[in-house]
């Protein structure tokens, strides 16, 4: 039942993108997303799309995996398009029944759809080419400056990686408890909302108790192995920038400069 859900959608293969330092990928993704909101003409989107396409090709991840992420936001995408299409005031283009599509509406709808799609695909590239582990490592080190502002960066990263380890275990446990309660005649599937919520009690109580017990055990095990926070810890796999990472940063910079410069020109066609 629940066993099939896998967390993180890492796609195992060999590529330059896979080998990049996670900090590069995190920063790159963030900058790429921000850049999408700067464009004023279609040329900008063209540049962004070509850049994205190039990265996808380099990553060796089949394109259909990239689009998979789209399915989750399809509804949101359609909603945005529909709202923008019909609810933007302006010069009427087509009028059907009480609904009017305006020129401005069409324009914003298309822009929003393109932005959203590239945003999703762009972040998929990151999650598909970086193990969750690597990602937390990258965040821990990349966000280290925030420590100056008393943000517990190490603790947050540690929590994330523990969560990643225990989510599959708790999923399996949920499955087991569910089956056991079904064997005792529990019914999780019929009845109205209130009845269904009530039916969850026999599942949630044991699950929480188990999670607390595990947390307690784990805390003890970590202390027994000399864990005492991030200070004075070394890393088995320290993150070190290599030349490919510097080149990648350069590429991102070139893209940003080119995209934002060309993408903000007043082009007559875009009107």
């Amino acid at each position: 039942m629940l066993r099939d859900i896998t967390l993180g959608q890492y796609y195992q293969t060999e590529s330059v993108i896979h080998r990049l330092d996670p900090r590069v990928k995190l920063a790159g993704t963030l900058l790429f997303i921000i850049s999408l909101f700067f464009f004023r003409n279609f040329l900008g989107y063209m540049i962004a799309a070509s850049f994205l396409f190039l990265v996808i090709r380099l990553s060796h991840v089949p394109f259909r995996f990239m689009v998979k992420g789209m399915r989750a936001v399809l509804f949101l995408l359609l909603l945005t398009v529909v709202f923008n299409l019909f609810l933007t005031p302006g010069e009427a283009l087509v009028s059907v029944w009480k609904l009017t599509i305006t020129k401005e509406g069409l324009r914003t709808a298309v822009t929003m759809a393109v932005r959203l799609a590239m945003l999703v695909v762009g972040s998929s590239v990151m999650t598909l080419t970086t193990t969750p582990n690597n990602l937390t490592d990258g965040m821990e080190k990349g966000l280290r400056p925030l420590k100056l502002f008393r943000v517990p960066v190490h603790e947050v990263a540690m929590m994330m990686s523990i969560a990643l380890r225990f989510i599959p275990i708790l999923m399996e446990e949920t499955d087991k408890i569910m089956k056991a309660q079904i064997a005792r005649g529990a019914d999780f599937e019929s009845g109205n909302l209130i009845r269904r919520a009530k039916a969850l009690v026999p599942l949630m109580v044991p699950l929480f108790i188990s999670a607390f017990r595990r947390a307690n055990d784990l805390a003890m095990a970590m202390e027994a192995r000399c864990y005492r926070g991030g200070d004075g810890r070394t890393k088995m796999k320290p993150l070190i920038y290599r030349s490919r990472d510097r080149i990648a940063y350069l590429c991102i910079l070139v893209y940003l400069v080119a995209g934002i410069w060309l993408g903000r020109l007043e082009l007559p066609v875009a009107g």
Partner: protein
Amino acid sequence: MSIILDHVNYIYGADTPLAVKALDDICLQIPDGQFIGIIGHTGSGKSTLVQHLNGLLKATSGSIYFNGEDIYDRDYDRKKLRGKVGLVFQYPEHQLFEIDVFTDVCFGPKNLGLDKKEVELRAYDALRKVGLPDELFYQSPFELSGGQKRRAAIAGVLAMKPEVLVLDEPTAGLDPRGREEILHQIKELQTGTGMTVILVSHSMEDVAEYVDRIIVMNKGRILYDNVPKEVFRHCAELEEVGLAPPQVTYILHELRRRGLDVDTDATTVEEAAEAVVKAMAKR
């Protein structure tokens, strides 16, 4: 009145590349009132098998008949089946959730739609049958000891008055004393009520003393299905699939190998001692 499995196959993740054949052409007949042990190591398919008996898992192919009725029939009430074939999972105490033991045991019969009086009667009866003392009935289940928790959890299934009781590793994680007590209680329950009891275990010693019949599972198939004595004759084969026969059987085989003309059929220490004494007298 029995359970019949007819060429049952079960494949995990059937339409994925990771498909695993968990049950491979299982044919079984479980008549009323038998005490059966299903033995196999982790991953042998024994837990998968018992989850078919109450309809929790649906066979990929093959049929299962309970009391002559096909449980995969469209009109068959599988919810009712779960009351008839009570399944106690591994570490059942992890499913306790109510504020007190008694209320928790009431959960099963209440789900069967019985009236309050009948529910409480059954709960009371079940708690007595598992040997839990009265003064614990209204305690929080989380304050009980490990062995008591397990009894309470078993009572939770027993209160549904099943015709067949299936216990998946009822002794896992208990100490020797707890193990012995639980097994003893189950045996008593079985002889007292005459219900069919199926004990799933990876320990031959646990099972040898109590059951009438042993089913050995390996890689999703039934390897042996016979009375304990007959099954333990296959000492070497059992070891090959990672199952140790009871240590006495192994010792008797070892003594025989070293030239003592001893009867190797014994499954308990007492029987073994008698056999050795007899063999020594012959020399």
